[in-house]
């Protein structure tokens, strides 16, 4: 029943009409596909675009459980294909429909990318499926009151409670959800299925990777992007699904990655594409009626990426990171970045690793720029600094740091507060919890510091630990105890202060 062990069996089905409608040579296409994705079986199906029922025969004959369909146009009723897949007992989202209308020579690459994305699909959980009845609005007759109209399934986000960091430590998704579908239940995030619009914004933002959305998981986009970036001088187009397919852009050589909402595309995604060899990255939104309300953030991310490229010495950053339609037909081919880095690390899209890894890679590819620091509102990473004079190493800030950028190490002779800029997502949770904020002790800047990223973890504050005079175990940082003593001042008895600062809780 579970079938977790067996790898998915995948087939790529091509509509036989592709030859006549778009002049694609299916034999050549199949050969190209075999080179890009040896594991996928390629099937040519007559009249596939118009007769979804043909899938039934294909599934029972080939015994596949994942299907990529190469179609002549975007189908008018995609739910008919989904219904066929469901009827054969497959996952409703184990299906990728791909219009090859504008694909031309990129057809094989696009199909292989869809296949990679489907392979990376972990399968949907029951709570990630939402049933929807079709054609409710068409039901007028009295008789139709007694029949069930055809139905389809849509994906809904769900939170893995065991992985979620919880409201105390993180809570980023709760405030980011544009429709308020995420609330804290028992300290962990939970999705209200009736409210969720499946925009995927929370998926892209969860630092723990606890939120799943069928068809829009980070693992799927990572797999898809890896295949697209392996093209020659690739141009990546992140496109809002609601904007529909842009066949003209595809015909002009843009390789589309469809996302449920552009708000999901973090700066790290753009940087990953650039670092992975994309000559240009474009973002195409569904327009001003963005259901995620993220138009401003998207613009800011683009501005950040351009500023960063400028910092690195790129001559025309505006042509490498592009917003909206119409997309340029021709992007000047930029000199390939440093060859030493050609076979880079695998694409990762989870922040903050996505941004940090890509920034370091871009930095290496471009050599040392004159300036190293970019302060920008759209920076996906942040920098924390503390005033050593007033920080007591009390350890409040690490307890609310969702990514572990701030760490307090109490193990040794000293209590050490350290910070890793590669892990800081500038969420700002550490600022309000600092008890010494009257003295501006902890400062968070939304900024990217390339040198700091290369350096990694740094010590922010070192404080000698006070030790129990009876058993020798560390009690607390000396600086913190002194600060408490200072706050209590004359009013408290010296005996009590001595007890608190001289003995551990067990020995008191």
């Amino acid at each position, binding site marked *: 029943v579970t079938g977790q062990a067996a790898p998915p069996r995948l087939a790529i089905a091509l509509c036989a009409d592709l030859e006549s409608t778009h002049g694609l040579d299916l034999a050549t296409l199949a050969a190209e596909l075999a080179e890009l994705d040896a594991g996928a079986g390629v099937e040519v199906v007559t009249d596939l675009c118009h007769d979804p029922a043909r899938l039934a025969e294909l599934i029972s004959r080939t015994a596949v459980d994942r299907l990529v369909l190469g179609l002549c146009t975007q189908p008018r*009723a995609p739910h008919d294909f989904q219904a066929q897949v469901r009827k054969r007992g497959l996952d409703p989202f184990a299906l990728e429909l791909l219009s090859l209308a504008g694909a031309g020579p990129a057809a094989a690459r696009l199909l292989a990318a869809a296949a990679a994305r489907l392979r990376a699909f972990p399968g949907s959980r029951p709570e990630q*499926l939402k049933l929807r009845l079709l054609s409710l609005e068409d039901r007028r007759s009295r008789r139709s009151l007694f029949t069930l109209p055809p139905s389809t399934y849509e994906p809904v986000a769900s939170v893995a409670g065991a992985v979620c960091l919880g409201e105390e430590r993180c809570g980023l998704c709760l405030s980011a959800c544009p429709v308020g579908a995420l609330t804290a239940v028992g300290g962990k995030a939970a999705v209200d299925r009736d409210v969720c619009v499946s925009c995927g914004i929370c998926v892209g933002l969860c630092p723990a990777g606890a939120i799943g959305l069928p068809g829009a998981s980070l693992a799927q986009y990572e797999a898809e992007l890896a295949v697209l970036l392996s093209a020659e001088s690739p141009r990546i187009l992140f496109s809002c699904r609601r904007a529909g397919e842009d066949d003209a852009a595809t015909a002009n050589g843009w390789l589309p990655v469809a996302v449920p909402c552009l708000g999901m595309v973090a700066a790290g995604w753009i940087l990953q594409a650039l670092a992975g060899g994309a000559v240009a990255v474009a973002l195409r939104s569904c327009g001003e009626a963005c259901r995620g309300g993220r138009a401003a953030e998207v613009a800011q991310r683009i501005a950040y990426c351009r500023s960063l490229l400028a910092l690195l010495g790129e001559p025309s950053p505006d042509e490498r990171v592009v917003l909206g339609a119409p997309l340029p037909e021709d992007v000047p081919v930029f000199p390939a970045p440093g060859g030493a880095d050609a076979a880079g690390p695998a694409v990762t899209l989870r922040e903050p690793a996505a941004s940090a890894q890509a920034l370091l890679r871009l930095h290496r590819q471009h050599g040392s720029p004159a300036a190293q620091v970019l302060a920008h509102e759209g920076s996906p990473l942040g920098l924390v600094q503390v005033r050593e004079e007033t920080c007591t190493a009390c350890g409040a800030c690490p307890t609310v740091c969702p990514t572990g950028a701030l760490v307090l190490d109490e193990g040794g002779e000293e209590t050490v507060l350290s910070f890793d800029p590669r892990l800081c997502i500038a969420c700002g949770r550490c600022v309000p919890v600092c008890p010494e904020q009257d003295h501006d002790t902890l400062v968070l800047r939304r900024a990217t510091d390339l040198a700091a990223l290369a350096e990694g973890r740094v010590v922010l504050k070192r404080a000698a630990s006070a030790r129990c005079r009876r058993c020798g175990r560390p009690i607390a940082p000396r600086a913190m105890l002194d600060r408490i003593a200072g706050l209590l001042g004359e009013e408290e008895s010296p005996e009590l202060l001595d007890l608190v600062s001289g003995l551990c809780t067990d020995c008191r």
Partner: protein
Amino acid sequence: MARSTRRTKAVADGGARLGDLAELRGAGYGILSLLLSYPDDEQALRRAALAAELERGTGVLGGFAFFPRVRSLLERLSALDEEGAAQLEAEYLDLFVLGGAQAPCPLYESAYVDRRGRDRGLAMVAVERAYAQAGIALGPAAGGELPDHASLELEFLSQLCAREAEAWRARAAEEAVARLESERRFLDRHLLRWFPSLVRRVAASAEGSFYVDVAEAAHAFLIHERDLIGLLLEAQRAPAATAE
């Protein structure tokens, strides 16, 4: 071309009559109730009859996402030999029965909802009241089982579906809608409140067991039902608003 698409759609998942659908949904609850009851010979007998009913409805149910899970459970169950059946019984006892309230995953709502645990508390009284309101009393077939047992709660919904089916067939849409509403109420107030915890506990205490799949399939079915009932109610309201 257009005709072929239309025909495909009708074959694929269109046009189930709500009476038939309610009856099949009832069979779904019935099967899950059975799967969570004690696995003895009597269960095996009733299982065959319910499985046949479910199979007859494949055309309607086949398109629903929960169906493949339920079907594969039935297939696995009917493929069991004597040794397998004995092992299943042992699994059932270990997971749900032995230890009473301290069993790894008791099958009683009050064990999850009632703060004091399983002692005929308020949670169980509420379940009893829901049965009484629907005019359903526990008969001798319940075998003296407490009313908040998962199997009985599921069977209760199966009964509600049967009545809903009758109402649709008698063209009594209002009564059918009332049944749907009581089904939804019972799901929200009872089964869906504690089932997620049960699923987690079963998964944690018996990895790979048949009952992990049973609990997950039942949970999937319940979530699906919650959605479907909501949509059916919405569909009934929508045309009423535009009618004459």
